[in-house]
Every structure is written in C-alpha cells, then in structure tokens.
C-alpha cells in the first residue's frame, strides 16, 4: 500500500506540527509533529512499511507499535479525502 497526498492540498509547518488546508473543501486540519513526519512521506513512492520503518528509526520506537500509529493516521487522512491509495 502506497499513500499519496493530494497535490492541491497545502501544508504549513507549525511548532505543534502542521496545518493542512484542503482548498476544495475550504477546511483546515491540525496535525502533530508525528503526523507531519508521516504526511511528508506520503509522496506516492514510500510504502506504509517504509514510512513506519523511518518513523520508528526517528522516534526510536518499536516498529509494530509505530506501524499501527501510521496506519491509524493514514486511515484518518484518507477518510478526510486528503490522501489516496496507490
């Protein structure tokens, strides 16, 4: 599974993470720093496994736990129509 963020969606970095703006819906979404890390990797190239591995390295956390968090985040982003699956 490869997540890809919509290319019209705009991301603004903030101290707490980022704000993602969906211009079609006119809605903003706040994400934390972990979400921002995952979001940046939703480029249509990185798989869920690769993203989870990179995040686990970054956070020095257990891969299984991190993968669950990544999947939950991506599911949420997909339900908000901000990413699609390739």
């Amino acid at each position, binding site marked *: 599974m490869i997540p890809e963020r919509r290319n*019209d969606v*705009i991301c*603004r*970095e*903030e*101290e707490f993470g980022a*704000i993602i*703006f969906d*211009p079609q819906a*006119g809605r*903003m979404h706040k994400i934390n720093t972990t979400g921002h890390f995952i979001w940046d990797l939703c480029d249509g190239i990185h798989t869920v496994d690769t993203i989870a591995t990179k995040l686990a390295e970054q956070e020095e956390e257990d891969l299984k736990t991190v993968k669950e968090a990544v999947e939950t985040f991506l599911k949420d982003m997909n339900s908000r129509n901000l990413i699609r699956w390739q």
Partner: protein
Amino acid sequence: MFSGPTYAYLQVNRTCSGCGLDCYASPDGTALTLREAKEIADMLWEAKVFIVLLDGGEPLLWDGIVELVQHFRAKPMATAIVSGGEDISQAKALQKADLSMIQFPIDGPEDYHDRIRGEGHFQKTITAIKTFCDLNIDTHVGTVISPENMRYLEEISDIVSSYPVLIHRVLRYIHASKFLTAQQCVEVLSTICTLREKKRAIAPTNCYTFASQTPYRQYMNVEKFQGCVGGKTSLVITCDGYVVPCPHFASKSIAHTIGAPSIWEEDIKTIWKEWDFLDEFRKGLTACQVCPDNERCGGCRAAAFHATGSFDYDPGCPLSDVMLQKIQGEEK
C-alpha cells in the same frame, strides 16, 4: 501560537449606502484599488494564509470584486464575501469565479430591518439570499444582536430557516453605549439553545467568547473552541492598508489609536510576531487574567475597547464582575 494567521479579513472599501447602526467601518468612501488588493492577496498567499473574507463597506459595490475573487481562488485560497446585499448584479459572475461563501445580514423582521438599513432593503436581502442559494454558493446569514433587536431573534430564525442557508450566525453589536449586558448575552445564548433544540442551523460567533460559561456549552466542542480568534488565527487588513486584530478595529481612527502597522511597510509574518499590541491582545483582558477560562476565552477585546475605552473587562461577560472583584480582593 500559530506562525501566522490562517485566515484574514480584507476590507476592500468603506463604501455602502449606510444604515442606522453605528458601524465599525462607517462609510468614508475609502477603497483599495484592484491592483493594491491583488498585491495584498499575493502577500497573504506568500504567508500561507488559507482563507480570506472580503469585507466592507459593501464589497459588492466595489468594482474589482469578481476579478479579485478569481485571483484569490486561483491560488487556491477559500474566498468568502461579507455583504450587505446591496447589489447582486454580479452574482453569476461570482459563481463562475468560484466564490466559496457569502454572508448577508438580517437584522429583524421586515419593518425593523428596513428601519435600520433603509426602505426596501429587507426584500433586497431576501432576493440576495435566494439568488446565491439558487446558484449553489454556500450562503450564510448574519444577525448583529443589540438590545433593540434581541427580542426578534426567534422571528429572525424563522425567516432564515425558510431558505437553504447553511448557517445563521449571531453576532454582537459592539458599541460604546448600546452594548448587550452580561444578562442579555446569556439570554441571547439561551434563545440560541432553544432554536438549536428545534434543529435550527444557528450559532453564536466567537465574539461570545464566554459561551462555555452559559447554557450554550452543551452545543460547543469546548476542547476545540478558541474564543476570540483575533490575533490568534486571524487578522484584518483595512482598505487603508492597516493591519488590525479584528473587524471592530477596522476604521482609520481606531487603527491610528492602536498604532496599527501598515501592510505596505511591514510583512504579515513580522507584524504577526512582533507587534506588541497584538501580543497584548492575545493575552486577554485584565479581568480575564484571574479567570480559569482565560486561555480559551480572554473576553471580547472589541467590546471592552468600545464600551470602556480600555482592555479591562468585557461588559457582556457573565464572569467579568466576579473576576474584577477577585482582582480587587487580591490587591487589598
């Protein structure tokens, strides 16, 4: 704190046919040129401001309105208009320009509304609402509540609910003497609760910063509620180029009084981070400093400023008296 505003009001003009309310932007004929407005749009976009509300005066009487909406939408910023409904001849062109939302005022039943805004204005507004709803543009209605029209709120809601309006927003009339008292604010919010029970799409604006201290709390997402968003997530650019924290500071004289910086002299992010006044504004009113709800509320700074000439307390807040007594007690 956000690194910059997420949305901004852009006051394109202070031209309108006038009304019986003392307005925060009383008509003095000042207006931006289209070129200036586009330049500001580019600055906002560069600062990654996502949403713009075009305000006046009456933006629909401003010549470049369609081209400006197109300019914003091409970026692509969400673009809304806060209108008095005075001229809807450009409605189809605005639909084509992909206008995101428009808001029109209803101040009361026909007689009252016309007394405030002029003979025939109520029907003009109803036509505007119908027209924009028919064009499938998100249409909102705003009602500015003062002590004079608060008794009409249910009647106004009956009128609004007969059209496919997305939301009926209830504002506060901010004025030196005709402001809502704390008791009246609670009354207004309680009426809104009654209307919500009837499944009406009605909500107070964030100017009722203290809403979580009233019966309206049951309808709020208290965790997400931000209270006054002026200087926290939004700012206003006047048609003279001044940057001010909220639309109630959008006259030239008030901008001067508070030492508002000019968009033509400083960039938005610098103003956002470095303007002392904005920093103070974010902290909330004096009375709010001892209130446990200060972080999310902070009181309506505009109501305080206009009614008391200072940022001491919000005369509409049901907790102001208690907090002021608390401060006095601490000082003794």
